[in-house]
């Protein structure tokens, strides 16, 4: 991974030459994400789940909902935890073992996009204040890799959460106890939509595929909520953006995010 091969260099040259002509290697417009397909309820035993294909990138999110202790000083809020793992079958370069920094970043950026949008109404997930709350665990695994995991993971987690049902618990003998048959949808307030853009030369492209990802100078992931406001952002990569590019990326994320949000809504409605 440390040194770029000659083939990588040639690939980047080709991608850049095409971009100079306003074209992408796979024929998409610069601000066009790849085909998105969302299969909800892929894991029936989970409380919610979604398999998302974004081009040839495929990820799966399963949501588990179970009683937990609240965080200190947060006794009036449920818990939301989001993890991400690159399965070793998703790409030959993935290594097993403790998570690498880029996987930790992936999980944290996905988590923040959802958390900062206030998608889940955590105040409704309290069983008994300060004693027991509902924990929502969205665990994402990457099954096949072809670039832009940030968006694929965000869509999978969001679709899984939108289609999750949560059991009901009450306190019996100081322990949270399941109330049979009382399930309700997970309380949500907004639909976050993540849009990741790559910078290659002076070109900003939406949803970079695997080859584009390897050729990027820098990237930015911007999440917007249902109001069209920006709620989370992460810049990455070994180059910078001009101030104008940053503003432009904000505009793209609002516009493209709105379209993504429609897909997520469709997936939610399709599962009901």
């Amino acid at each position, binding site marked *: 991974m440390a040194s770029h091969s000659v083939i990588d260099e040639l690939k980047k040259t080709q991608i850049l030459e095409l971009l100079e002509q306003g074209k992408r290697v796979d024929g998409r417009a610069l601000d066009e994400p790849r085909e998105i397909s969302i299969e909800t309820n*892929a*894991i*029936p*035993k*989970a409380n919610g*789940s979604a398999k998302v294909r974004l081009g*040839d990138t495929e990820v*799966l999110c*399963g*949501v*588990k909902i*179970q009683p937990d202790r609240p965080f200190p000083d947060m006794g009036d809020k449920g818990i939301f935890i989001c*993890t991400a*793992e690159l*399965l*070793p*079958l*998703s*790409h*030959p370069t993935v290594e*097993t073992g403790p998570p690498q920094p880029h996987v930790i970043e992936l999980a944290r950026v996905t988590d923040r996009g959802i958390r900062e949008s206030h998608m889940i109404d955590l105040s409704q997930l309290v069983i008994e204040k300060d004693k027991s709350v509902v924990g929502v*665990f969205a*665990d994402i*695994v990457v*099954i*096949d*890799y*072809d670039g832009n995991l940030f968006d694929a993971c965000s869509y999978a987690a969001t679709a899984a959460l939108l289609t999750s049902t949560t059991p009901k618990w009450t306190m019996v003998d100081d322990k949270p106890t399941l109330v049979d048959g009382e399930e309700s949808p997970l309380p949500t307030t907004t639909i976050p939509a993540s849009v990741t853009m790559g910078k290659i030369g002076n070109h900003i492209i939406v949803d970079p595929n695997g080859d584009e990802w390897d050729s990027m100078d820098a990237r930015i992931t911007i999440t917007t909520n249902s109001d069209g406001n920006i709620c989370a952002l992460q810049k990455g990569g070994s180059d910078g953006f001009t101030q104008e590019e940053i503003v432009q990326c904000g505009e793209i994320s609002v516009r493209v995010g709105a379209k993504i949000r429609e897909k997520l809504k469709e997936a939610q409605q399709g599962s009901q």
Partner: protein
Amino acid sequence: MGGREATMVLLDENGIRCDGRKVDETRKITIKAGVLKNADGSAYIEFGDNKILVGIFGPRDVHPKHMSDTDTGILRVRYHMEPFSVTERKNPAPSRREIEISKVIKEALEPAVMLEKFPRTAVDVFIEILQADGGTRCAALSAASVALADAGIPMRDLVAACASGKVADTIVLDVNNEEDQAGQADMPIGYMPNLKKITLLQLDGILTPEEYKKCVEVGVNGCKIVYELQKKALTDKYFGNGSD
């Protein structure tokens, strides 16, 4: 075997099991070969409510080098459960159970793979349990065989796997999760039908010597059923099945 009391009828007076199956019937099994883009070979199996994905990489170089063998290739197997695959969310750290099953599956596959054909290299078998419902190791082993064949790894035979067990004092085929929890014995078997060799065998639970013999027999028969479905999956991929 937890030895817990059964709160359900595991086997009714007509010989029908809690999920409607007969004693010598497997759950519904679907196997698909070649389901991943990046992996050198892959397979997906649904075995009852088990959903398992297997990806293969290799033969490829081994790092660090001293882990390789100049005489033969090596097989490396990782059996891994997703946190959401089981009822109570699984801690993401690898459990001792997962490490043991990885080893057992590795040793069940080794007799089938012509490792001597690719010295100094490794073949990696990555098994992902997306949803678990009892009998994951057998389902995983069956899928791994198909995935290895899909990767073009030279093989002596496929390893087919299925569990037998003892439920309500009866030897049955393919113990499901409820039967495993409430039942009396569970015996996962991996079998190479052409070479007539048992390459995986475990047992939890109490069997008389006669039941033991019977259990092996029933399990081997189950493996033969699975074997047909493995061959079909490979045929479907390589020669088409009209619907794919």
